[in-house]
């Protein structure tokens, strides 16, 4: 989002994409009700869901933004931070 400043990507599109890709984190929240309290299993499942959300978000933003291919890594890292924050609230 911060790095995809090429002109045709507005704030609403970013917000929409981030909101859509929160769905894997929501699924993880539901799943965590049934998972055991063991730390390693929860961390592994959280990592899978966060990577899923990050990949989806980066793909969507890159497809929306012009010239977004060269910013893919940067966009993916910003998405990764946001979803990791939400996952922290779920795990602990």
């Amino acid at each position: 989002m911060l790095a995809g400043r090429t002109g045709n990507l507005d704030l609403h599109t970013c917000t929409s994409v981030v909101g859509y890709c929160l769905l894997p984190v929501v699924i993880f929240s539901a799943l965590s009700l049934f998972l055991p309290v063991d730390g390693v299993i929860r961390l592994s499942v959280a990592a899978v869901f966060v990577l899923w959300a990050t990949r989806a978000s980066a793909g969507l933003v890159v497809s929306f933004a012009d010239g977004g291919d060269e910013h893919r890594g940067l966009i993916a890292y910003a998405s990764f931070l946001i979803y990791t924050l939400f996952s922290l609230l779920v795990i602990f």
Partner: protein
Amino acid sequence: MYSNVGSQPGVQQPQTSLPPNPFGSAFNVAGSGLIRGGLGAYGGKILGSSSEYVQSNISRYFSDPQYYFQVNDQYVKNKLKVVLLPFLHRGHWTRITEPVGGRLSYKPPIYDINAPDLYIPLMAFGTYVILAGLSLGLHGKFSPEALNLLFIKGLLGWFMQAALLKVTLLSLGSGEAPLLDIIAYAGYTFTGICLAVLGRIILGYSYYFLMPWTCLCMGVFLVKTMKRVLFAEVRSYDSSRHHYLLLFIALVQFPLFTWLGNITINWLL
């Protein structure tokens, strides 16, 4: 399905606000508010200083936030290498200039490895907050309030670093570097701190090796960068006084890193 009907360019703000989570979890609401409030503060700060400098007569660069976000993967990789391993940076530390409209201007970060940007500081700051939360969680002390506290602590550290650089430049008679440049230089601090905190999460004792190392690297990076900034502004180079103040900048990194790297609930420690 994704028909982008009427995508108006509108006001391109450098922050992203998240929609509230429809499932209404208290923790998610706290997290969403945390992100919105934090990034909102950043947006206000960046836009405020930008408008302040636009009206300033001594503004020599294009003081818009867009300049600091013209980055790509190549620049970020190289810049991280320069920040974390400044000894291996061959070549000069001078920024590349280009004449634009009869006025000297600097090339954007995408073309110049020595230009400051705001992407790496913001991402490093976010990583610092998340790694701090992860570290607290692994010790069973995680809570959204603790995360908020560490966020404020990080902001305070960033402000102290920026104030240190600004006061040093002012005391040496050259206060014309743009405020966003100072903020960007100060923000690189968090890349080293993130590395040290990550080392502590993975292997506890590597912290005591990584923290002094990252302090030293950040000190060297800041000294070389500030020396370049000074030389660009002040032609009369008072050698001894400059060197003492630059050395002071490097020495202050050690207590600042130690304070920011010590992740506890008590934010005075």
